[in-house]
């Protein structure tokens, strides 16, 4: 590479040479614009694109094939490369501006605004009713919102670019339009909300959502208000061309200069901050720079120019070239200032000598040995600030050379700067045309730069930069996929094309995490590529993202299936309830039924929901699906909730009927008949007892029991025979009931009625458990002989137990009893029995 001019060749001193400014040419413009003053121009910050539109107030010579057409907005890169052309067919344009992510906002006088991306795709929003009726008189756009003044002098604010509702700001009480005004963007204010500065009469109002404050300035009216990039200072220009700089809280006066002393007259076209400490004023071809101490620099151009304020300088765009004017950064100044003896400069010098193989190199290094670290740092920093790769390299070489003399030096800054410069040089290349400085790059972020490359459809570069800087590439890929799909807009597409494009997209995404196929599919769907959208959705790992799109695509069954696959039942409910709203009931049920086993989980959930929230729906569902047993169970549930006898009986009969319609449920149907019959009987029983004895709700067993305990044995027998209660069970019931009512005679008679089908041990045990040992022991003789001794003991009748032993001549058992005897009395009795056995 040929050595470029020395960096200092474009430096201009100020303040007696203590500060230098440099104006370097970035590009010679590729465009064919003849005279920029014919256009309205807005440029985006951070080396962003320019939007130009022919100024309607200027006279244009028609003819020579030119015809008057609707205005066209042209988007150019900073190097004058055409990005795209937008035709504006809406009402009169009030203003244009750039968002932070380089979308162009255009507002018309009816309050309608569009947000265009660099490809000309737009979203359209409105400021609302008031703006439409009153008209928009003026507006200003900042990176994250806009403020508009309506015909009735109300200030409306839009925050963000998602189409939010316009907020009305506090009332100003203005009676005439402001002389000039400016926005203090939200990121610069204390409140983090946008503030508006309004010049009216001789003073300035500051306005936000809550209040409008008169700042009691008396030097107005002003023709320009400009807010510095850091928001700390305001530049005000009076109509007498006195430039007055104050702190943004109006408390301190920072500078004042009378421009008429500079020999200029008339108001400038633009007042732009150049960094945070100087201002640039532009009159067509004159660029006047005012430093903080009243010194000035002037630059003349051959044709009118436009300035774009940056955080660290100002970009000056003309028909022929694009320049960047900035204060020479301190490190650059230190290294390159003629006659500089700073460590950085010495190191750089040493490097030059080293390359020439001159021993002076060593001498130089030696002389700055203690400050070598600072010297290396300075060279690295100066390299970062340099535009020309030649000087970047030289400076980095110098740094690298110096580093070699250091034992310990953290190389990360060196590596970062080297990497970053590689990326910046690529972005600055004229075909790309993003003249971003290192400071601006640091102020934004690598992701921001990648996003900007992406939005210019420079996917390959964006992808490489992402990979190089190791940042996530999925936004790039997503944009690429959407752009790829949009390319084929309007062309007839075969099924194969869809599959191919899907395959291409999927293969590009392989190995990339975090890519949202759902977003791409939504884009495809919006472009009318439903089939492709469905194909793409198949690859979305997050089911919750698939389902809503499928629903809006009316792919109902697939949406339901995907929701089921996700395992998230709430997602299934979401689909079910949406479909229930949209479809008629018949279609809704059919969708679920025809889905087969795959949709069974959805049918299950529908039942769970309907059982609690919509019984009617459930009834219909079971009916339509011929689910007799389920219908019957549902009716049983209704029966259980009924508090009225008639309702309950009816519900039970209905359940019985449903059961009977299912050939496998004959038993259940019969049971329902029995149940209904039992309820009727219980009703009669209650009536007979004048309602004093509750019967309703008892089981068959309990009914018999109740009959016996209330002395209605006959009725108990009738229930027994009508319900064919088996002997054994009946005997238990009667035993329990008679014990309960202590009807010992009855119990005895019952026991003797016939041989007990359950034996007599249950008699003994039950009576014992209810605390009637005396009654219990009466039944012991009827029990199995082997058990009797134990049973007697259980009844506490030791003598009987002993007697039993004697009867059976079981000496061993008797001895055992004697050992277990609870007291002396028993002991003696048992001893007696034992002795009687012995004597025999």
């Amino acid at each position, binding site marked *: 590479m040929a050595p470029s001019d020395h960096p200092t060749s474009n430096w201009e001193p100020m303040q007696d040479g203590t500060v230098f400014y440099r104006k370097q040419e970035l590009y010679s413009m590729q465009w064919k614009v003849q005279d920029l003053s014919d256009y309205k121009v807005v440029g985006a910050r951070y080396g962003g694109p320019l939007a130009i539109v022919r100024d309607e107030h200027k006279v244009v010579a028609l003819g020579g094939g030119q015809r008057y057409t609707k205005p066209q907005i042209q988007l150019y890169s900073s190097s004058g490369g055409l990005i795209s052309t937008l035709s504006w067919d809406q009402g009169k344009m009030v203003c244009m501006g750039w968002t932070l992510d380089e979308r162009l906002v255009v507002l018309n006088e009816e309050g309608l605004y569009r947000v265009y991306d660099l490809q000309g795709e737009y979203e359209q929003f409105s400021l609302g009713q008031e703006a439409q009726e009153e008209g928009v008189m003026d507006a200003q756009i900042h990176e994250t919102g806009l403020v508009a003044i309506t015909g009735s002098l109300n200030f409306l604010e839009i925050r963000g670019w998602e189409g939010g509702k316009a907020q009305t700001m506090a009332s100003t009480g203005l009676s005439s339009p402001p002389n000039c005004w400016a926005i203090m963007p939200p990121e610069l204010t204390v409140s983090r909300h946008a503030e508006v500065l309004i010049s009216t009469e001789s003073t300035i109002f500051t306005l936000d959502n809550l209040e409008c404050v008169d700042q009691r300035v008396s030097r107005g009216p002003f023709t320009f208000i400009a807010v510095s990039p850091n928001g700390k200072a305001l530049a005000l220009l009076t109509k007498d061309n006195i430039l007055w700089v104050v702190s943004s809280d109006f408390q301190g006066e920072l500078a004042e200069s009378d421009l008429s002393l500079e020999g200029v007259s008339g108001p400038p076209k633009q007042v732009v901050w150049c960094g945070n400490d100087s201002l640039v004023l532009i009159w067509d071809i004159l660029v006047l720079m005012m430093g903080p101490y009243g010194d000035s620099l002037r630059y003349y151009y051959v044709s009118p120019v436009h300035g774009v304020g940056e955080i660290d300088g100002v970009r000056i765009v003309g028909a022929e070239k694009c320049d960047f004017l900035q204060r020479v950064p301190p490190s650059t100044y230190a290294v390159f200032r003629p006659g500089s003896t700073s460590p950085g400069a010495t190191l750089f010098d040493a490097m030059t000598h080293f390359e020439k193989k001159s021993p002076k190199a060593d001498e130089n290094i030696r002389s700055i040995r203690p400050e070598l670290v600072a010297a290396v740092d300075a060279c690295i920093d100066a390299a970062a600030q340099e535009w020309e790769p030649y000087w970047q390299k030289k400076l980095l070489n110098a740094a690298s050379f110096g580093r070699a003399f250091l034992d310990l030096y953290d190389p990360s800054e060196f590596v970062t700067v080297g990497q970053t410069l590689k990326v910046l040089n690529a972005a600055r290349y004229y075909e790309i045309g993003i003249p971003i400085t290192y400071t601006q790059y640091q102020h934004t972020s690598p992701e921001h730069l990648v996003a900007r490359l992406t939005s210019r459809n420079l996917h390959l570069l964006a992808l490489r930069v992402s990979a190089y800087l190791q940042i996530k590439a999925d936004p790039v890929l997503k944009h690429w996929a959407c752009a790829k799909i949009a390319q084929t807009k309007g062309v007839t597409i075969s099924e194969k094309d869809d599959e191919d494009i899907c395959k291409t997209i999927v293969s590009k995404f392989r190995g990339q995490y975090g890519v949202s196929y759902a977003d791409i599919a939504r884009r495809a769907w919006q472009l009318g590529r439903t089939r492709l959208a469905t194909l793409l959705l198949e690859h979305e790992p997050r089911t919750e993202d698939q389902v809503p799109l499928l629903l809006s695509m009316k792919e109902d069954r697939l949406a339901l299936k995907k929701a089921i696959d996700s395992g998230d*039942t*709430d997602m299934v409910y979401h689909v079910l309830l949406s479909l229930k709203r949209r479809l008629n009931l018949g279609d809704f049920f059919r969708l679920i039924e025809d889905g087969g086993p795959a949709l069974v989980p959805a049918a299950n959930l529908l039942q769970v929901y309907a059982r609690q929230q919509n019984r009617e729906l459930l009834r219909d569902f079971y009916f339509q699906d011929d689910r007799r047993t389920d219908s019957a169970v549902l009716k*049983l549930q209704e029966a259980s909730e009924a508090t009225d006898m008639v309702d309950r009986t009816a519900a039970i009969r209905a359940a019985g009927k449903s059961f009977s319609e299912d050939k496998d449920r004959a038993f259940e149907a019969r049971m329902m008949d029995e149940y209904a019959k039992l309820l009727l009987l219980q009703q009669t029983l209650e009536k007979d007892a004048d309602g004093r004895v509750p019967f309703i709700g008892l089981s068959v067993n309990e009914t018999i029991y109740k009959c016996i305990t209330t002395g209605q044995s006959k009725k108990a027998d009738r229930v027994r025979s009508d319900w064919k209660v088996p002997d054994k069970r009946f005997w238990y019931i009667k035993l329990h009931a008679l014990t309960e009512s202590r009807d010992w005679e009855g119990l005895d008679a019952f026991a003797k009625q016939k041989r007990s089908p359950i034996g007599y041990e249950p008699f003994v045990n039950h009576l014992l458990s209810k605390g009637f040992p005396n009654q219990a022991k009466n039944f012991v003789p009827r029990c199995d002989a082997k058990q009797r001794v134990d049973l007697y003991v259980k009844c506490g009748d030791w003598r009987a137990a002993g007697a039993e032993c004697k009867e059976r001549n079981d000496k061993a058992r008797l001895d055992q009893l004697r050992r277990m005897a609870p007291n002396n009395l028993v002991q003696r009795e048992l001893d007696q029995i034992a002795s009687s056995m012995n004597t025999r």
Partner: protein
Amino acid sequence: MATAALPRPPPQAGPSVPPLRPARLPSAQQPAADSSDPGVDVGVLKQLAKTGLVEALNAVPGGKTLVLDPTLAGPLGLVTEVSLLKQHGVDKMFWLEAGALSSQSQNIVYLCRPQIRWMKIIAQQIKLHTASSERHSYTLLLVPRRTILCDRILEEEGVFGDITLGQLKLEFIPLEEDVLSLEMENTYREVFLDGDNTAIYYSAQALMTVQQAFGLFPRIIGKGDAAKRLADLLLRMRQAGLADDPTSPALSLPSTVLDALVVVDRAVDMITPLCTQLTYQGLIDELVGIKNSYVEVDASLLSTAPQQMSGAPSLPAPGPTPALGPSSAQPKKKKHLLQASSDAVFTDLRDENFSVVGAHLNRLAKRLNEDYEGRHRAQTVEQLRDFVGKLGGLQSEHLALRLHTGLSEQIVPMTQTEVFNKSLEVQQNLIAGYDVNAQFSTIEDLINREAPLHVVLRLLCLYSITVGGIKPKQLENTKREILQTYGYQYLTLLLHLSSLNLLLKAPAPAPHLPLPSLRKHLRLLVDDVSEQAPTDIAYVYSGYAPLSIRLVQCVTMKPAVVAAEMGEKAVGGGSGGGEAQKEGTLKVVPRAHPIMGWKGFDEIVRSVPGETFDEVQRPEGDGTGKVDRESARHRLSAGADGRIVLPKGHSTTTVVFFLGGCTYTEIAALRWMSRQTRGRKYLICTTSIVNGSSLIDSLSPAPWAPITT
């Protein structure tokens, strides 16, 4: 309107505790140093739940009335105290129940699970307020998450706009150091009867949280259709999580402290819960009832002496009856938290077979007495001081001893009833396949005697499962007997049991449990099991080795399944009394073998109905993504078959998840297994603690309304 019966907190002395800061999950990825450590520390999950609650409460400024879902009170009580709620502005608490809500506070906070019935009650209460032009601001916190379904119900009820909705992520609650429960009581019914898989989804999310805390399960092994669904969901969630955050270490790296997740769904093994649990804690649950770790005992067994170190008052679960009514008639009952951390006696007893509990308590009483007697031996001032120092411990031990003696005394007579013993006998015989016809007659006899319905149904279902259905005539007849004896309203329950394949007509349609072959190959019956010094998990049922745990052993402790003699070798001798057992553990126990899936048991496991699966979670997702170079060094080396090779001396934890609930006996069996090998601990996770009766209750429809006319 009933006020929630919550104990008052003690007056707060001094400044309140500083508000908790949101805790990030600390990475617990450090490998456990030795095998004596308790495994992974689950305290972090409790802290997470607590912080979530505090944040949710603080989001509502000022004093507020808290309206609480009664089914959440128990779980919440395990993670927080009333005093904490008070500190965060809760000045009054009510149960969420139908009827008007009268509240003085401006702010009303509802806290409930996202269920339709709660939404309807809340809507009703808000509408009543609106009608009487009472003004409140409502906040609804849904546990564990806000759902679209609830939004819709509130919309349909017309109150959606009046409520601020939020969520409280209450997932696994540590019941003990080694037991985590979601405390979702009805999971078995919802998943297997209703086909509502919500609980599976929540389980998966909760397990994802566990993975976030401790790293990926290197392997997910399991049995059962629902278990498979859960495993699929876990894999899917990992992919979705990686799609959002590809660099998440918790999703890309297998854990170094966990070696596998074993999922068993309840439908795979219904035999185990249907049998009567015979461990101490299991029997308390069967006969007295344990709810959210709380047991209701006579107040006289609990002392309010200062030694009771249970700390701040807790939120007990609401009792089945209103607190006011019958309490005056019966001896006063009190809720007591049964937890090993606060009760050393219980730690020793909980997993013992009940038959040895009496002797154990005796021994303990004797020792305690001797310890007390120690004061007479104290000669010097130092010895006396020593003794006084021990006194606090002795006293709390004394109190615990009194409680457990009291509980045992309460249980003993219950285990001596005829019904209890007959039902045990039937269970044993059915599993052994011995004279099934006689068993059926016994069941019929129990119906005639009007034994409790759940006893009858448990046996009947066990019969149907083990025998493979009931002869049609017999089945119909028994069903009729049941309906006549207990009431026709149980028809629905019987239908539910049959649709769950628990009560089937013979021949039961395939697939059904091949019990004879399982009995043989998985040694479901162990003949001479020692209750004092167990040599096999079968001690928890005095002979029957729970199928679910045998399946887990097929993965984690293969020798124990293979043969009796191998099993005995595995525990080092195994003869002799309890003391010998203690010595046995001091001897060198064998190292746990690495996880190798179902290997060796594939065929027999496959013969059990339900899906069988074994998934390896590899480090880098699909193998398509980039491997983090850093991470590659940390992860365990996985062999070609996904087999995890453990570094020497490294101890890992196997997570066992029971989908649909587990019993205390299953927990006891897993704890026993932890002690048999070095290098493997078990972390037991479950949807809730269940037993046969609670499962059957969950299938029963609501009680019938009384007829009013």
